[in-house]
């Protein structure tokens, strides 16, 4: 078997059943060395099960999990050279910060002095040096989160698993910690596998993202690939916001498809793999649609609602066939936002739209 050196975790045909329920269905993923890799999906999609399978907390029903060439699927959690940052941190409540961080090092057989020095290093990395003697109950949520991170980083794992570590933090803190996590990942060179249901988190932090739904990987790619070239309707809808127009596909050639819009207009635009002639979906992002005068553009309708977002305004347009389309407009004095009830035409470039399969 040709060994690929830069694969950190190779998930091979992993299936996980809970009784009759299939949590993971034949999942295949390559997570590269030194990568910030995110498992993204709605709750219940199987992303946490997959992370826990890598950690060893779940026994997979079928398949292999290969960590740097070694199949770890049958090892106990304490035999796997990976560490986890838990969602609710799971700090040992009867140990202070230093003891928490030192726990893994001592289990690995390090002597106290060596371990202590390492604890100092990681506490500095997460900027908690001043809190070394505090008990977890004396720390804020953000500080506890850092202790959890330090504790998992201390044994220098080959892969660090993070299970929605930011979900318990408030928004401001979450944004700050995102940046820090990214810096720490780059500084340490450890492969991060990050689980989240927050697409913004995924898009801003990750080198690559796997979008998971229904226990299956829907798409793997960089943030840009997933946002701009979603493979299917689920990915387009889950990542960011999109408008899905029902269209009739007439012709497919060279990765492009021609289709007829509900208004009767015809366009030729990029098509996802697997698109076929017949009824399909055309995905257009709200920020890629422009509003023109009534009767113009590709489709027509009436502005039916404004949703004020601060920097932007979402204008909901009800098309003549009753479908609703959201248009994102900048909240600026130069831009005329149509009044509710006003008839408008909608226009978008063919390349900004994408034909999708279900």
């Amino acid at each position, binding site marked *: 078997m040709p060994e690929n050196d830069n694969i950190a975790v190779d998930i091979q045909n992993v299936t996980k059943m809970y009784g009759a329920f299939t949590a993971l269905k034949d999942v295949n993923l390559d997570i590269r060395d030194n990568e910030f890799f995110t498992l993204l999906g709605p709750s219940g999609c199987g992303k946490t099960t997959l992370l826990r399978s890598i950690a060893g907390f779940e026994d997979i029903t079928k398949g292999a999990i290969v960590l740097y060439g070694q199949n770890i699927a049958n090892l106990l*959690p304490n035999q796997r050279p990976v*560490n*986890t940052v838990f969602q609710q941190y799971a700090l040992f409540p009867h140990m202070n910060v230093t003891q928490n961080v030192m*726990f*893994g090092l001592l289990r690995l057989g390090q002597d106290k002095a060596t371990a202590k020095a390492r604890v100092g290093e990681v506490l500095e990395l997460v900027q908690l040096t001043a809190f070394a003697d505090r008990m977890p109950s004396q720390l804020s949520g953000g500080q506890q989160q850092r202790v959890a991170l330090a504790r998992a980083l201390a044994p220098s794992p080959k892969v660090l698993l993070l299970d929605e570590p930011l979900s318990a933090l408030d928004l401001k803190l979450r944004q700050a910690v995102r940046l820090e996590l990214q810096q720490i990942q780059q500084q340490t060179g450890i492969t991060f596998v990050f689980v989240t249901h927050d697409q913004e988190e995924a898009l801003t932090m990750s080198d690559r993202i796997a979008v998971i739904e229904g226990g299956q990987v829907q798409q793997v790619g960089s943030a840009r690939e997933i946002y701009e070239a979603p493979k299917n309707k689920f990915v387009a809808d889950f990542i960011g916001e999109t408008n899905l127009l029902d269209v009739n596909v007439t012709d497919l050639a060279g990765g492009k498809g021609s289709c007829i819009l509900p208004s009767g207009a015809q366009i030729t635009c990029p098509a996802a793999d697997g698109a076929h002639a017949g009824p399909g979906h055309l995905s257009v992002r709200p920020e890629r649609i422009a509003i023109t005068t009534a009767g113009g553009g590709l489709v027509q309708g009436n502005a039916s609602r404004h949703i004020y977002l601060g920097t932007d305004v979402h204008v909901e347009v009800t098309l003549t066939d009753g479908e609703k389309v959201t248009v994102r407009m900048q909240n600026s004095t130069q831009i005329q936002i149509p009044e509710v009830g006003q008839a408008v035409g909608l226009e978008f470039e063919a390349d900004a739209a994408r034909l999708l399969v279900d």
Partner: protein
Amino acid sequence: MAAGPQPTPNSNTSTYAGFGIPLILPAWVIIGFFLVVPVCVMLIYSFLTKEFRGGVIWEFSLAAYDQFFFDRGLFGDEAPKIEWTYISIFWRSIWQAAVATVFCLIIGFPTAWFIATRTGRNRSIWLFLITIPYWVNLLIRTISMKFLIRDNGPMNELMLSSGLISEPIHIINTNLAVQLGLFYSYLPFMVLPIYAAVERYNFALSEAAADLYASRYVTLTQIILPAVKPGIIAGCILVFVPSLGAFLAPDLLGGAKNFMIGSLIEEQFKGAAGNWPFGAAASMILLSMVLVVLTLYARQQTREQG
């Protein structure tokens, strides 16, 4: 899986705090009257002079305590020597209660763990099963136990006929019988507090320990036991303290040789041979021993939390 809102333990306190005194008053009255008054009576009686055929003479005397600790000969005119009779009864009681507590802990901890790790309805069923023995009076249960463990009782018969043993095991009227009786009587007092502690235990801590390379043994001793320690200590106190003063099990299962404090005290208040001040003194000595243990525990707790 989403993070729940942070608990705000005091959010409702002020709304209901106004009811405070009336809420606690009935408990105060009952405890004040039926606990504090009898203890005071016992304390006073222990310093009075004994009346033959029961009762006391209202005359101050240290005779009861003197009798407990010192031997002054048959006529009370010899130089005082330490009286070992009662001290050794106390010592044996402490030993029996301690063994029963250890039995209860060894059996009770896995039981509590098992129940706490069941889900939903199963858990309630198991908890319910634990309480079933309490539907039958302790006296009746202890007598049936006596019947079961007799030399020619069902337990020995069963083991003999199955070839497990070749002659009956003599248990009745031994220390072991007393320990078994205490263990059986007080096991639920060990199970329930440990159950409550395990139920609150965050199992993610065990996962975190395993994730940080801890073996199962290390996880148990360094993570789980410290986390459920309050439940274990509460269980040990709830078993040890009543075991120390128990008189049913020692009386019925232990026979005359295996006399414990409870029986000693009981005897002082029974019939014409009784000695009320002496019984009261023995009770006070028992009470102060228990208080010393509890105080040490409370002090330990505050030190850990402080």
